[in-house]
């Protein structure tokens, strides 16, 4: 059963992968294009002794997972961009109080009510602007459904390992498409959480889930502790895929998620047409695989970031390259997904322009 390749919709594969990872609790609010996640959970969880609650808003949903995560269980919510904006407050509390949860954002076009087409316009929000305060959290960005399945398991593990909320970012295509996937065996060996608020037995001090430190020195100590954790994450957790880069081509594309799939096809086509090019695909948007890009800058003479936005990840790429090479950008916004042909043409133009 577990080794079988099954045809599954992205949203449902993400939900099932969470269940395999030991998540038995889901709190969420409907929003397109990710409704199949709560729908799947509402069907499955009651049958396996789990909990599904349709919250009154995303604001409540994120606070429900705060309560449940603080009580020590694996728990998740999912939403799409406008709904995720509403979770920013709760996310900051999750970071501050160090509550491990997983939040899935199936990104749609913005700003405002925007549209429902696939987008990567939430890169800034996910990697640096998701709520107030000095904070970071791991952001995983799958580009295939199999990778989404694998990264959901990783998301729960990293959340517990670092006692931190973890984000998984897809887009409308990842959420809506079907692909064959293979699920891992269900996880049974979940980590102990002695810090959880489960009721205080006489044998231990009370546990408090909290992010309030009124004394500046205390809060600074908390922030320092968090940043020591972030430093460990930045050292150990950056992940990326290097595609056709082994021969150190002079041109390196950079793309993640759905855009990386299309960019891969563009790389293959350009190679067939004699253009020496490869692709570096960040799998973790934070920690950003900066050293992999810096290393590529030893040989690549030009970088081109392609995104489903008007240029967000490109800022991280430029920072990684530190001015040693030009980092150009091309992208579409609003839910428009470019064709392979379009990327090929734009890459040729950007090569010419340099």
């Amino acid at each position, binding site marked *: 059963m577990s080794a079988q390749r099954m045809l599954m919709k992205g949203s449902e594969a993400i939900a099932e992968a969470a269940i395999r990872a030991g998540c038995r609790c889901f709190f969420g609010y409907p929003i397109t294009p990710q409704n199949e996640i709560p729908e799947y959970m509402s069907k499955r969880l009651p049958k396996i002794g789990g909990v599904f609650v349709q919250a009154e808003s995303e604001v409540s949903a994120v606070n429900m997972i705060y309560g449940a995560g603080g009580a020590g269980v694996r728990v998740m919510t999912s939403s799409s961009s406008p709904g995720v904006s509403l979770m920013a407050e709760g996310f900051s509390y999750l970071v501050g109080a160090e509550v491990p949860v997983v939040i899935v954002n199936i990104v749609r076009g913005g700003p405002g009510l925007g549209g429902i087409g696939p987008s990567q316009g939430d890169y800034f929000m996910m990697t640096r602007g998701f709520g107030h305060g000095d904070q970071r959290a791991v952001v995983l960005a799958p580009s295939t459904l199999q990778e989404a399945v694998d990264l959901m398991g990783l998301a729960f593990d990293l959340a517990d390992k670092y006692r931190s909320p973890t984000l998984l970012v897809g887009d409308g295509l990842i959420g809506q*498409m079907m692909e064959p996937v293979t699920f891992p065996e269900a996880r049974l060996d979940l980590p102990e959480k002695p810090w959880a608020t489960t009721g205080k037995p006489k044998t231990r001090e009370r546990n408090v889930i909290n992010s309030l430190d009124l004394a500046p020195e205390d809060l600074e100590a908390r922030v320092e502790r968090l940043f020591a954790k972030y430093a460990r994450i930045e050292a150990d957790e950056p992940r990326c895929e290097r595609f056709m880069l082994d021969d150190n081509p002079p041109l390196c594309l950079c793309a993640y998620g759905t855009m990386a799939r299309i960019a891969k096809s563009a790389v*293959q086509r350009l190679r067939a047409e004699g253009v020496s090019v490869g692709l570096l695909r960040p799998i973790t948007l934070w920690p950003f695989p900066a050293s992999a890009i810096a290393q590529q800058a030893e040989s690549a003479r030009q970088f081109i970031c392609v995104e489903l936005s008007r240029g967000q990840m490109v800022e991280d790429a430029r920072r990684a390259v530190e001015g040693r090479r030009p980092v150009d950008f091309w992208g579409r916004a609003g839910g428009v997904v470019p064709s392979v042909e379009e990327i090929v043409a734009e890459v040729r133009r950007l090569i010419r322009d340099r």
Partner: protein
Amino acid sequence: MKETSVVMAGFGGQGVMSIGKILAKAAIHEGKEVTWLPSYGPEMRGGTANCTVVIADGPIGSPLVKFPDMAIVMNKQSIDKFEPELRPGGLIVVNASLIDRALARRDLVAVHVAANALAEEAGAPRSANIAILGAFMARAGDLVSIAAVEHALAETFAGKPPSLLEQNLAIFRAGLCAGAPA
């Protein structure tokens, strides 16, 4: 690497999403890579629906295709939308029961099949999608094997009365005959 894209379009309720899934399951059965992508959002509430299936023998890039290789069109709106987008030399399978016009383009391989009539003759008017899938398979070359599609059909109707599968297999084969080159 060979990569082929097929778009299936029709009214909501004509079962275009289902035949897309059957094709995708057939591809999995043959160990191929496949993506299935629906149109989604308000447009799926009534009106026309479509899905795109990409089948390849290696990792697939974009599941969203601007210029598909093949199309199955079940109603008038669908032929109007997708005929202009097909690649030159592409295959278009037209539901002649609901589309009475000829193709505007001359650089496509066209197959006209009265899918609704075929399904009605077999006593299952709702299975016009299976009939047109049969006609499509008659011309789809080595995309996936007919046996794999029949296997996927069996998988799809698993758990339902066996007679239902028998009936749909018959309709599928009737479509195959109707779509075969004269």
